[in-house]
């Protein structure tokens, strides 16, 4: 009883501070803006978005003082997944029979084999659907992605005109080359190791995957992400998923080391 009151007294200032903060910015404690109403309230309290910023050489500027935060989408093909907002639009996934079985198994076993749960890289395109901040650093010859989530990794997309190697070493992130088309960064990725899941739901990615990503900063605050998944090992034809990524002014990347104290995976038994 006394402990309960003491706890309440101790936590009261924090609760009050949080409420005051929420009144100022209703979305402040909401990762990834899954709720459109919250997003709208946040927008109403922010200054209006500015037009797409550009670098001196005319390329779109994907940086600034802040970081990107994807709207969380557990299933990149569904508008809603387990009751929360998911990807931007619903997609009919052209499963091959075997990849449908794989997907169904992963759903039925509640994602117990999800590599992300074991602190392995989430791969491409899942970084753009997971609720962790990231930054894009643009150089003349490359774009460096810095991710907060997972095991705090980075990724390089070469924009110096090089081609994919002939016999690319299979990796989680694949081999990525990019170019600019107007205000869009187009990234072409091959050379996957086939171990990543496309999303939390469990859409399969095989070693034959060829991914084309399109990043468009439509205004100062919004990054539209469109990904074309061409993977004849799992799907009968290419399909497209989209997501919206939000700019968080002033946000800096915090160090997140998944492997430091990972205690969840032993409890993931699929029942």
């Amino acid at each position, binding site marked *: 009883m006394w402990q309960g009151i003491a706890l309440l007294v101790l936590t009261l200032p924090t609760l009050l501070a949080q409420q005051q903060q929420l009144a100022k910015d209703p979305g402040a404690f909401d990762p990834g803006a899954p709720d459109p109403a919250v997003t709208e309230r946040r927008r109403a309290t922010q200054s209006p978005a500015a037009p797409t910023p550009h670098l001196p050489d005319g390329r779109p500027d994907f940086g600034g003082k802040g970081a990107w935060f994807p709207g969380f989408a557990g299933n990149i093909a569904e508008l809603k997944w387990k009751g929360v907002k998911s990807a931007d639009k619903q997609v009919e996934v052209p499963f091959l029979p075997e990849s449908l079985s794989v997907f169904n198994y992963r759903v039925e076993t509640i994602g117990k084999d999800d590599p992300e749960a074991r602190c392995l890289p989430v791969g491409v395109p899942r970084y753009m659907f997971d609720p962790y901040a990231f930054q894009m650093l643009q150089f003349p010859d490359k774009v460096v992605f810095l991710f907060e989530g997972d*095991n705090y990794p980075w990724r390089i997309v070469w924009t110096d005109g090089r081609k994919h190697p002939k016999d690319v*070493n299979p990796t989680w992130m694949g081999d990525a080359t990019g170019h600019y088309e107007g205000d869009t960064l187009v990234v072409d990725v091959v050379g996957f190791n086939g171990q990543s899941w496309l999303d939390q739901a469990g859409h399969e990615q095989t070693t034959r995957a060829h991914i084309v990503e399109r990043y468009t900063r439509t205004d100062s605050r919004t990054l539209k992400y469109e990904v074309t998944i061409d993977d004849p090992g799992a799907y009968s034809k290419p399909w497209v998923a989209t997501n919206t990524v939000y700019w968080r002014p002033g946000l800096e990347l915090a160090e997140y080391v998944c492997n430091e104290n990972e205690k969840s995976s032993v409890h993931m038994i699929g029942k």
Partner: protein
Amino acid sequence: MMRSAVLSSLIAFAASAQPPAATPPPGPAPRLASGRVDFSGVWRPGDIFLIEDISLGLKKGDSIELTPAGEAVMKRHQSKDDPETNCLPTGVPRHAPYPWKIVETPDYIYFLFEGNIHSYRQIFMDGRKHPADPNPTWYGHSVGHWEKDTLVIDTVGYNDLFWFDFVGHPHTEQLHTVERYTRSSRSTLTEEVTIDDPGTYKHPFTVVASHRLLPGDELMEYICQENNRDVRHLVGPAGRP
């Protein structure tokens, strides 16, 4: 014996990304348009102490003296508990034998690591100070500035989890490091690190290391966590291979 085989294979693996050993390109360090020395390029730790035993890199005349508390912690360290072996970051200044590179924007410098769980480290170059109560992390809170051609990085806010080397030199959250990087020639990056941790060492000490340029090379994807099978083979107290 086992350890040295593992280490050799690690080094061989890291080296496999590069073309056959060539003579390092001679000449002075290249410069940016601004006139300052350019640190870009892929670097490979050239000194074994960055991996095995930090005391091998002590600056001439310097010494490492553990406090009784520090000594007690070091004695407890078993090889199998080395965070590096368990796919955790190696902190500062330990590098393991993997290449790394530096990328720079106006307000930040980033170290991108091939090993070190394939992570990165950010250094604030915008003139800010350390926060009064930083959140303890593997890489700490790093602020940097240039002293002519030398990059000086001051870091506090470390967690107490990483080891400085295979032999298990420990530290506490009181750790404060000052790193000084100089590209002394086109193919050499020299690092001088002063380690100050009154929780573990009786006085600050300085170690010196060099990194060699890997011209034309790029970092590979290395995911320690993917298939780590070493830990169960490591027995006994922390030590050099």
